[in-house]
C-alpha cells in the first residue's frame, strides 16, 4: 500500500517538555486513521506538524511525498484540514464563506451538493453569527472537504455535537472511506474510533504506546472473568493469582474479577480449581475488553482526564 503520511523519529518540544517524543508512523493511502489520547498527549501538535502549521525540532515528516514546511502552499491545495477551534468573520453569510474558501483552491467540489450533505442548504443566507454551535462545527468540516482533498485531517470533529450531528459527521467520514480518501482524525470518543477507524494509535505523553486495528487492540488486551462462588471459605484472590492464566484478581464484596489473557485456557483452569476445592460458581460473567479498557490500561487514565 502507498504511504500517504510518513513520520520518522519526530520530536517537538515546548521548552523542555517534549509534546511529541520520537514518534515514527506510517499512514497508508485510503486509510481512516484514528489518534486517541488523553488531553495533552500530543495529538494536536502531531497533526499540526503534518499540516505544516508547526515545525518540528527533529525528525522527518512527509505528506503525499511533500515536506509540509517547505511545500506548504502546494500541500495546502490537496489536503483538507479542520482545526480544533475555528472562528469566522461574524458578518459574513454561510454561502459567502463557502464560496470564498472554494475560490482559494485550484479545484473544488460542487458547493450546493456539499452544503446539502451537511444539511446547511437552508442556512446559506444566514450570517455566521446566527449559526448554532453544531451548525458552525458542520461548516468547519464542510470547508475541510471543499477542495476534494486527498488527505483529510480532522481534529476532534464531533466535539460539542449532539448525537444527531455526530451521526452526520460519521456519515461524511464513511463517505470519505468509499471515496478512498485518507482520513486522519483525533477523537475523545472511543466509540467513534472503534466504529470508524481502520487503525488506531494510542498516544500518551508524546509517544505512541499502541498502534493496531481496533479489533486487534481489543483482542490483545485482557479479558475479564467476573464470578461469585457458593462457598467463600478458603477462597481468596491470593490463591487465584497463583493460577498460571490469571494476570490479576480483585475481590469486591462477594464478587471476584479476574484479568486474563486467554479466556478459554483461564476458564479451564478455573473450573478445575473450583472442582479441587469442591466449590461451584454461583454465577459467571465473561467479557472481552472494550477499546476503553485498553485505553485505560495503557495510559493509566480515562480519556476525559
Amino acid at each position, binding site marked *: 500500500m502507498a504511504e500517504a503520511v510518513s513520520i520518522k523519529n519526530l520530536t517537538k518540544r515546548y521548552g523542555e517538555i517534549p509534546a511529541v517524543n520520537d514518534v515514527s508512523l506510517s499512514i497508508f493511502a485510503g486509510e481512516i486513521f484514528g489518534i486517541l489520547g488523553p488531553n495533552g498527549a500530543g495529538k494536536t501538535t502531531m497533526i499540526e506538524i503534518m499540516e505544516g502549521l508547526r515545525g518540528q525540532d527533529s525528525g522527518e515528516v512527509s505528506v503525499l511525498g511533500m515536506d509540509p514546511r517547505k511545500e506548504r502552499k*502546494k500541500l*495546502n491545495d490537496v489536503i483538507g484540514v479542520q482545526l480544533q477551534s*475555528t*472562528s469566522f*468573520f461574524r*458578518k*459574513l453569510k454561510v454561502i459567502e464563506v463557502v464560496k*470564498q474558501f472554494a475560490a482559494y*483552491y*485550484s479545484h473544488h467540489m460542487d458547493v450546493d451538493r456539499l452544503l446539502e450533505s451537511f444539511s446547511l442548504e437552508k442556512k446559506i443566507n444566514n450570517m455566521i453569527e446566527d449559526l448554532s454551535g453544531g451548525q458552525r462545527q458542520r461548516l468547519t468540516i464542510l470547508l475541510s472537504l471543499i477542495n476534494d482533498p486527498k488527505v483529510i485531517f480532522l481534529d476532534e470533529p464531533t466535539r460539542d455535537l449532539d448525537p444527531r450531528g455526530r451521526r452526520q459527521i460519521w456519515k461524511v467520514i464513511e463517505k470519505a472511506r468509499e471515496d478512498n480518501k485518507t482520513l486522519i482524525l483525533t477523537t475523545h470518543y472511543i466509540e467513534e474510533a472503534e466504529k470508524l477507524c481502520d487503525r488506531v494509535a494510542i498516544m500518551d505523553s508524546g509517544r505512541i504506546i499502541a498502534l493496531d486495528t481496533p479489533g486487534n487492540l481489543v483482542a490483545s488486551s485482557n479479558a475479564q472473568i467476573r464470578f461469585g462462588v457458593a462457598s467463600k471459605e478458603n477462597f481468596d484472590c491470593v490463591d487465584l493469582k497463583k493460577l498460571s492464566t490469571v494476570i490479576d484478581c480483585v475481590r469486591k464484596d462477594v464478587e471476584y474479577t479476574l484479568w486474563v489473557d486467554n479466556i478459554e485456557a483461564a476458564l479451564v483452569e478455573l473450573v478445575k480449581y473450583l472442582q479441587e476445592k469442591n466449590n461451584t460458581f454461583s454465577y459467571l460473567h465473561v467479557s472481552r475488553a472494550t477499546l476503553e479498557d485498553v485505553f485505560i490500561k495503557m495510559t493509566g487514565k480515562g480519556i476525559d482526564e
Partner: protein
Amino acid sequence: MKLLLSETLIALKLSLRDRQSLFWAFLFPLLLLVLFVSAFGGGNPRAASGVLSGVICISIFTATLFGIGIVIASVREEGILRRYRITPLPKWVFVFGTVMSRYIVLFLSTAVLILAAEVFYHIEIVGGFFSLFVVFTVGTASFSALGFAVASFAPTAQSAVWMANVLLMPMILLSGATIPSYILPVWVNNVALGLPSTYLYDAVEEVIVFGGGVASIWPDLAVLMVFLTVAAALSVKLFRWE
C-alpha cells in the same frame, strides 16, 4: 485576478456591514468638518479649505491605523485568520483585498466629504481633482501599509490599540491637520518632518488650498512612496495569520 476581486468584495462587505466602522468612515469626518469650520473658519473659504485638507488627512489616518491596524490585530486574536493559513491563499492577496476595501470606503466617504464642503462652504479644489486623487491614493496606500505594520508588530489586539493611538496623536497634532504649523515652535516642526503624516498634509493642503498640481507636490509624494515601500516590506515580512 478573480481572486483579488472576490477577496476585495468580501472585505468590502465586512466593512459595510459594520455600523461602527461606517460611522467613523462617513459621519465622523463630516462632524469634524462642521466643528472645525465653525470653530476656526468664520466663513472664510480659505480657512475652510484648510480644514477640509486636515479632515481628509485625519480620515486617512484613522481609517488605516484603526480600520486596518486594530481590526486586523483583533481578528487575528479571535483566530479568524488562522483558518487562512491552511489554504493556498497567499498572504499578499488577503492584504490586497483588505487595503482595497478600505480604499474604496475611504474614497466614497471622502467624495461625500468634498461634496458637502462644496455645497455648504463653497470650497473649490483649486489644484484639481486629478492631483487630489493622486495624493489621496498614494497617501492611503502608505498609511494602509503602516496599519498593516502595526497589526504585524502588535502581539495582541490590546497592544495594537495602544500603538495605533500613540502613532495617531502626533500625526494628527503635528502634521498641520489640526494645528497650523506656523504657530508651533521650530523644534516641534523639525520633529514633524520625521513623520510621514506631515508630507501627506502638506501635499493635500497644496492641492486644495494653494492650487498646486502633481508637479509641485512631487517631493511629498516621493517621501510617501519611500515610506510606503518600507512599511509594506516590513508588514509583508512580519505579517502572520496567528
